[in-house]
């Protein structure tokens, strides 16, 4: 049957992770793997459960997600606006693009000493790091997206009387959207990486705080819960990005969900 086959195909990607967890559990039980290095999966699950019940988990995840999204909104929003500006207006391009391309080559993590000097170990330091990291993928892809809009379509639209905002809304923005969404996807990945680093350096709350705190008390199970949470949140962000692509790029055969 086609349905059972497609269901089986849906399960295939999960075979390897499930086997890995089974092997890990077996290695821990046989004593081959010390709890100090890696606790057994069951212990991680238990730690997860108790953190969930105490409400700690919910609070920390909410705080970390809030920081990530705020950083994304600031950095991504600025990147989008500046990308649209430099992509659309020649003056803005000559004025800003060279500078931005130079700054782009500075790895955000290299700024950590400066960021600590400027902002201390405050909330704003974390927001700054995330914002500066997500800025460039969105800026570059927006700029590139606007630049690569089909000139033939723009000419056609102009000859049909479209100009100004109507031309932008009908032709230029939709034409740049695939590229902008690629930038967003890159940014969502970077967003978590930078937040992890920022929270690990110093934090009074959030997932990073939870794991660093657990390290002090040798609670490897809690540390692992934190690591897995980051993985889950990263995957979730990717799913959201893909959902956006399917929604906004459904006209493009490359983004249409495959018909099995």
């Amino acid at each position: 049957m086609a349905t059972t086959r497609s269901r089986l195909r849906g399960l295939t990607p999960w075979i390897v992770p499930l086997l890995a967890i089974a092997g890990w559990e077996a290695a821990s039980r046989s004593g081959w793997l010390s709890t100090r290095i890696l606790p057994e999966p069951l212990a991680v699950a238990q730690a997860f459960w108790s953190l969930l019940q105490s409400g700690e988990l919910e609070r920390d995840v909410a705080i970390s997600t809030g920081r990530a999204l705020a950083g994304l909104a600031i950095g991504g929003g600025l990147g989008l606006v500046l990308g649209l500006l430099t992509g659309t207006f020649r003056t803005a391009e000559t004025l800003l693009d060279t500078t931005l391309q130079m700054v782009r080559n500075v790895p955000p993590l290299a700024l950590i000493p400066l960021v600590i000097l400027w902002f201390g170990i405050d909330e704003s330091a974390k927001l700054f790091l995330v914002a500066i990291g997500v800025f460039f993928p969105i800026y570059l892809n927006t700029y590139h997206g606007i630049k690569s809009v089909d000139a033939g379509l723009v000419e056609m639209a102009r000859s049909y009387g479209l100009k100004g905002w109507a031309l932008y809304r009908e032709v230029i923005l939709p034409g740049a959207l695939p590229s902008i969404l690629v930038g967003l996807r890159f940014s969502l990945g970077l967003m978590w990486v930078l937040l992890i680093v920022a929270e690990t350096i110093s934090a009074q709350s959030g997932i990073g705080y939870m794991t660093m705190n657990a390290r002090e008390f040798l609670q490897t199970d809690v540390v692992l819960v934190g690591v897995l949470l980051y993985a889950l949140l990263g995957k979730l962000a990717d799913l959201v990005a893909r959902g956006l692509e399917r929604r906004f790029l459904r006209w493009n055969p490359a983004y249409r969900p495959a018909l099995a």
Partner: protein
Amino acid sequence: MQRDWISPPTSGLGVSLAALGKRFGDRDVLHDIALDVAPGEFVAIVGRSGCGKSTLLRLLAGLETPTAGAVRLGGAAQAEHRDEVRIMFQEARLLPWRTVLQNVQLGLDKSDGGARARDALAQVGLADRAGDWPAVLSGGQRQRVALARALVHRPRLLLLDEPLGALDALTRIEMQRLIETVWRELRFTAVLVTHDVAEAVALADRVLLVEDGRVTLDEPVALARPRAHGSPAFAELEGRVLARVLKETPPAAEETPRPRLVA
């Protein structure tokens, strides 16, 4: 076949060019073009690639500005009739992120745009594809949508820049028939740029040849419509224009046998 046309016949827009010229940098693409097209006339412009025929059409469309002379439409300046001129490009240039219907509605008022766009789609035989994305259409269907998008504005001058150049032979003939039917029904002025002499002879009242940036042939086509590709008069005219384009000696001259050299 009787169909409901989208609009009552509109009068065509006359075209008048005097001493029109266009340079790109130091390259002289067109010079001293003088041309009058009567309202409602169908003119075809043929020529080898790179002869400037597409540039001439783009000047008529207002997509390029002339470096000498001016384009006058309906006896007035070009800018006054901008909304009455529509162009069909070699590629359909449909917006891939808009449905077929939304593409036809481009630049129309929201109020009655939908109904008019549907009528125009029905006119080109694609009423049932209104909700599709352009990506799923064939090349011929895309050009039909592009034609509907042009017609919905009730143009008085329709410019066709080799719109059938990329289509297969059968689809081409179908599209030629469609364009002719629509032109006869709506009475707009039509200027078609093509490299296909047969297409020019099949559709046009006059065939112009552009060579080295000037009009070097202005041949009226007096055949009755609809024109049969196979008729002797058609073939004779097509052969004559083609020979002129290729700068061959006319076939008539070749019929006289050359004197043989006898050693």
